[in-house]
């Protein structure tokens, strides 16, 4: 009974999260949804007498792999989102047909199968529990495959380094060169910080210059765009105009 309840709750959540992952425009949300699915699955592993896998699922997937995803998302651009227009003719239609058809077929196959009551893993894990039994198998029967996996992991790490590495084409700029470039450029000084007002000292409030004009550079353009999109503009029209200006600059 307890397992049934657990299953249904987790099943609904995981299917919902999976659908959310597929249909959410923003990649970060997709990643979070996927994390949810993985956590659900981890619990299911635990319920199904696989505590070791449950731990590995959480550590490797939700821990390492998902972090890697998020990291790359940040690298590529957190705000990059898909457009909703499908460019390939008939791709969506056929994708849904094929996906639904495949799911139907698999469910049909499972429904057609005759299930005996689950054998359970009590006998298989009799010698010192699940982790010990899995370890016994991995280090005896599957030790060769396991060793090969280590080679695979090393290769993958090396491959990732090779792929991500960029050759330096010019000399690394020294501090001297950098400072010279800064002084030759338009602005030798650092960018101005955000404005601090009596009623509001948020990071999206532009500062004022000594002559009373608005310093547009004091607001991050991403934040400016966010403000414009979410209608968080300050009440002061001068400041609002500056933020809008900055947001337009960003969207160019």
């Amino acid at each position, binding site marked *: 009974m307890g397992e049934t309840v657990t299953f249904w709750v987790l099943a609904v959540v995981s299917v919902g999260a999976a659908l959310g992952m597929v249909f959410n425009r923003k990649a970060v949300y997709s990643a979070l949804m996927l994390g949810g699915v993985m956590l659900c699955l981890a619990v299911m592993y635990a319920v199904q007498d696989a505590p070791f896998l449950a731990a590995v699922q959480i550590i490797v997937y939700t821990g390492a792999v998902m972090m890697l995803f998020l990291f790359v998302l940040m690298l590529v651009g957190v705000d990059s989102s898909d457009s909703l227009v499908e460019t*390939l003719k008939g791709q969506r239609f*056929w*994708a849904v047909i*094929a996906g639904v*058809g*495949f799911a139907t*077929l*698999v469910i049909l*196959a499972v429904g*057609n199968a005759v299930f005996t009551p689950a054998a359970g893993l009590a006998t298989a894990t009799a010698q010192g529990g699940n982790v010990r039994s899995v370890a016994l198998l991995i280090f005896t029967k599957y030790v060769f495959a396991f060793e090969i996996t280590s080679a695979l992991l090393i290769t993958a790490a090396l491959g990732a380094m090779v792929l991500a590495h960029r050759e330096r084409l010019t000399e690394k700029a020294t501090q001297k060169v950098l400072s010279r470039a800064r002084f030759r450029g338009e602005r030798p000084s650092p960018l101005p910080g955000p404005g601090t007002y009596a009623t509001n000292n948020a990071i999206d409030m532009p500062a004022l210059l000594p002559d009373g004009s608005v310093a547009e550079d004091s607001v991050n353009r991403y934040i400016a765009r966010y403000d414009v999109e979410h209608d968080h503009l300050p009440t002061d029209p001068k400041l609002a105009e500056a933020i809008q200006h900055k947001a337009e600059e960003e969207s160019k």
Partner: protein
Amino acid sequence: MESPVEIAQYTAGGVIGVSWLMIALPLLGAAVLLVLGRITDRWGHLLGVAMSLASFVVAVLAFLELVGLPEAQRRQAVFLYEFIPGMADMGLLIDPLSISFALLITGVGSLIHIYSVGYMSHDSDRRRFFAYLNLFVAAMLLLVLADNYVGLFIGWEGVGLASYLLIGFWQFKPSAAVAAKKAFIVNRVGDFGLLVGMFVIWSSFGTFAFADLGAKVGTASQGTITAIGLLLLLGACGKSAQLPLQSWLLDAMEGPTPVSALIHAATMVTAGVYLVVRSGAFFFEPGSPQALAVAIVGAATLLAGAIIGCAKDDIKKGLAGSTMSQIGYMMLGAGLGPAGYAFAIGHLFTHGFFKADLFLGAGSVMHGMNDEVDMRKYGGLRKYMPLTFATFMVGYLAIIGFPLLSGYFTKDGIIETAVHLQPVLGWLAVLGAGITGFYMSRMVFMTFFGEKRWADDAHPHESPSVMTIPLIVLSIGSVFLGGYLILSNRLLLFLSPAVGRPEELPEFHFASVPGLATLGLVAVGAGFAWMRYGRAEVPVLAPRGSFVTAFARRDLYGDALNESLFMRPGQWLTRIAVFLDNRGIDGVVNGLAAGIGGTSGRLRRVQTGFARTYALSILIGAALLTGALLLVGNI
């Protein structure tokens, strides 16, 4: 009728045991002359003559030893070596028939060699010529001496090769090259018949040896025997220039004048007669359809050759037509069974002499007339080359069957036997003899009598003695040989151990009805020729002539027939094949390639470069696979 005697293995240590020297010596000569090449230029012709003469000596010695044996032992087989294990051994059969041929080949062959020393003295390739002559003699001897059909076939092909090389000896002349090619190809047709005949012999009897065939031939059905006989006849027609494979012989006169002509008149073309006579005991039972076919072919060819001979102005081609005609007589005789064999072989011998005489005489005339061959440009030559004239006249009288000369006995023998056994063919042969009288007289009158019609630069003179002495030798043979062979059945009795003999021996009648009719017709023909060409003036340019003349001039339209029946359809077939190859086979291949190319060109559009399209097809495939597995009930 009496059958041939059994063939025995030769065990005594006489000359017959080394009769292979007959073949080996000329073959060695040919090999030396061809392999050593120009080194032998100075003495090559002497080696050739020596080898041929040595072969002749061996033949004479073997002949003497054979004659010394009792009649029942006059067929001796000499085993040489195992040739094709289980099929044929290389061995020689020395019996009256083969030794007669060997004597003729080596004897006349040696005379050709000697004559050629003088005739070819100005030719820079004389050494090569003698190599070919030696090769010819060796091959011809292998043909007649082999004791089985395989050896015979090897000799047969060797003769064909030597003939090809000799006809095309002056290969720089396009006409000679074409004539050689023609002879070779026409002979191929005949060889094909011989070869298929041999196949049938092997599959029916399992042996090629003459010694074994006699016992086994009764086991086969009559149809098989007839088939073999007709196939062998086809082979004989090819080599002996009989209808319908006669067309190569006239063109073969392109070879070096007297020598090649002698081979194609006196020796080589008799191979077909030899084949028929040799196979006679097995496959040409008297009265059988195939024997009748031989006789019919002979009769048809003797008429055709005679008619062609009437219209030719080229003296060599006239003689070539005459050769066809005379071999037709031999074939007619050979088709009559043992009764005719002796006359056929006898005519072969006498013809070998008088035709050699006539050809050498013609060569002598040409020699004196700057190699002019057109008889219309001769005339009145008897005063200028008396010796040639005399010997030519002897040959002429012999060939038309003037009483008591060689041709008289042998030809009348054939005619009489034919009238007796096959009356229609016999009377046709009588008619042919009359035509022979006409065309040979025409030749003599145009050449030696009448007005001079020479070219301006002609200075006729008698030939040197190296050329006239063979003429005299041959003339003597032309006069006496026939009577010696035929009277009291000498040749028939000599040959009978090899070919059998009829129940009652024929008797030569000097005053039989066919014989008198022949003489009468020959006289009429000769008189007609005198009226047209002796008394009347012969125009230097050939008159247009009637339809019949044109018919004969063009070799009875034989070439035209071959062209329209075989060459043109063959060319059309080739063109159709080329068309089919270009459009059909190439079309299929190219079309297939184009089809595949076009399909691929359209199909490659599937490769859009979009990973998601590929993924979609993978998923659809996986779904279909799952569905299929579900349907067959595996999951």
